[in-house]
């Protein structure tokens, strides 16, 4: 699959990415579209394929299929030239443990062509590492390495920053600082793609979100779209849930009907719900409860990323149950 021409100059456009490791399909037909100025949350549980997808975007891994355009250039075809306005890291940023933080930045600046050598002190300042810059990276904490990774990425003065779970593994203060840092980058006009397994993080920072589950994209859109799709969920309890579930599945306008611990849940517009209630009664099934259920984003995230039927009971169900 090729990147459509109208998206060629977008910061990031990926189409049909596939990467297999033996029998595991780590990335299975992933499309990503990121517009200028987006703060794009690439959301998915552990092992969903986020890191692998980012590796493909950065040209570290060859996909089995699909293509990538970073401001119109594919790392597979153009090599590092495709990364010209792009910076970032996958997994924890790695540096030479036997060199100081500053020397590591000097090294990466030299590998960028040397123009950024004069900005190293500023970058260290931005990530608050100035006072530890002369120490060897081998003695750095996880949080310091993470910040050094950001500093290294900033040296490229990128227009697109790709960050892989930058706040994961940090203590609460470190997490807050990291998120503040990312917000500052976004405010400065940089396009940011950040992967995360935490919905709250994405909600806090991002305007657009792509959700990946087992290598496949299950949602891509604005956070507003995501919230809108969280509405329209219903809970149903009947005298015969087995038959009722069959009725739900064949009723028009009823989607994602499934059995839960507390009955049946489905999604539908109100008109379809009214028709469903009639259909149930005609089938000889008594209704004991039919309630609109305002799913939270968290519920939605779980529903999108967990296996059907094996989904854990969403927290708000438990509350209802107790009520």
């Amino acid at each position: 699959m090729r990147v459509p021409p109208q998206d060629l100059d977008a910061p990031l456009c990926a189409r049909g990415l596939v990467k297999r490791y033996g029998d595991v399909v780590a990335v299975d037909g992933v499309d990503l579209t990121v517009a200028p100025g987006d703060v794009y949350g690439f959301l998915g549980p552990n092992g969903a394929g986020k890191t692998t997808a980012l590796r493909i975007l950065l040209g570290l891994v060859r996909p089995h299929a699909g293509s990538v355009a970073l401001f119109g250039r594919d790392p597979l075809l153009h090599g590092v030239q495709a990364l010209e306005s792009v910076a970032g890291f996958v997994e924890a940023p790695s540096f030479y443990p036997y060199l100081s933080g500053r020397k590591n930045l000097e090294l990466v600046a030299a590998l960028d062509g040397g123009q950024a050598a004069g900005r190293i002190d500023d970058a260290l300042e931005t990530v608050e590492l100035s006072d530890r810059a002369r120490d060897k990276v081998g003695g750095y904490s996880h949080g310091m390495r993470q910040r050094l990774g950001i500093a290294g990425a900033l040296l490229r003065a990128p227009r697109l920053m790709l960050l892989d779970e930058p706040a994961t593994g940090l203590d609460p203060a470190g997490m807050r600082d990291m998120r503040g840092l990312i917000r500052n980058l976004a405010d400065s006009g940089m396009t940011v793609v950040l992967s995360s397994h935490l919905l709250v993080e994405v909600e806090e920072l991002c305007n657009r979100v792509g959700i990946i589950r087992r290598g496949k994209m299950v949602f891509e859109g604005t956070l507003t779209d995501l919230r809108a799709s969280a509405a329209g969920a219903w809970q149903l309890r009947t005298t015969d849930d087995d038959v009722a579930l069959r009725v739900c599945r064949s009723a028009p306008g009823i989607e994602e009907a499934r059995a839960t611990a507390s009955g049946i849940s489905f999604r539908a517009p109100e008109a379809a719900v009214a028709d469903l209630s009639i259909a149930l009664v005609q089938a000889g099934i008594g209704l004991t409860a039919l309630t609109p259920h305002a799913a939270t984003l968290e519920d939605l995230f779980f529903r999108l990323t967990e296996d059907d039927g094996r989904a854990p009971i969403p927290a708000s169900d438990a509350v209802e149950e107790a009520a």
Partner: protein
Amino acid sequence: MPSTATVYRWELRKLVSQKRTYLGLAFAIAMPLLFVLALTLRRHGAGPDVAFGRYVRQSGLAIPLVLLVFGSFWLFPLITALVAGDIVAAEDHNGTLKTILTRSVGRGRVFAAKALATFTYAGLALVVMGLVAVAAGGLKSGLHPLTTLSGTRVSVGRAFVLMGASALVYMLPLLAIASIGLLLSTVTRNSAGAVVGTLLFSLLLQLVTILPGLGGLRPYLLPEQFNAWQGFLRVPTDWAPIGHAAWVCAIYAVVCVSAAFLVFLRRDVAGD
């Protein structure tokens, strides 16, 4: 895009900052010192039974030449393997490969810089060993004219020129071993495995060389090429082994470096 020279300089800086670099150089310094110490402790008696072994008490200049012979068994293969086997695999292990390959320098240049740095290190170890051996040998036996393998004598100045030329020819099989190390380092992604593998490979070739049935392979294996420099210490100079070593070693080096290069260009940089 930065030049290969820039990347090469940083590869050297990385080597300078790593302990293993000094381990190899320490071996290169220790060998001549130990040799001269042994010679001093055994006050009389003949030198070792190898080329130039007879002359170690006659001229200190024979000592570096004897050590070239000894060094080819495992010392120089080890020193070379120590860096060659590590230079790509260590970056795999540290995860730093992804750091340098997401900057503005192409994979080809990174590989070229690493190969050059490896070769530089092997050459430096040889030079260090040579200088220490000349100094220690000079102190022990004096810098006197050297007896060549043809029995003629050459002046001290001429001996230095011949030793320089010998070192260059000695570099040929060293570069071949370095190339094998680079290949193993790139393919195995495991530093210890690549270092040990390179050394074992070099020892295996020595074993094959002395096995009676496989004598026909001997001219095409590396141990033989480690003696090619002795052509310079004959009168007149015997170019045949030197030319032979040049092409045999070139084949080893070109095959291994090309294979490593292609793997490095295309391979995935992923964890584990």
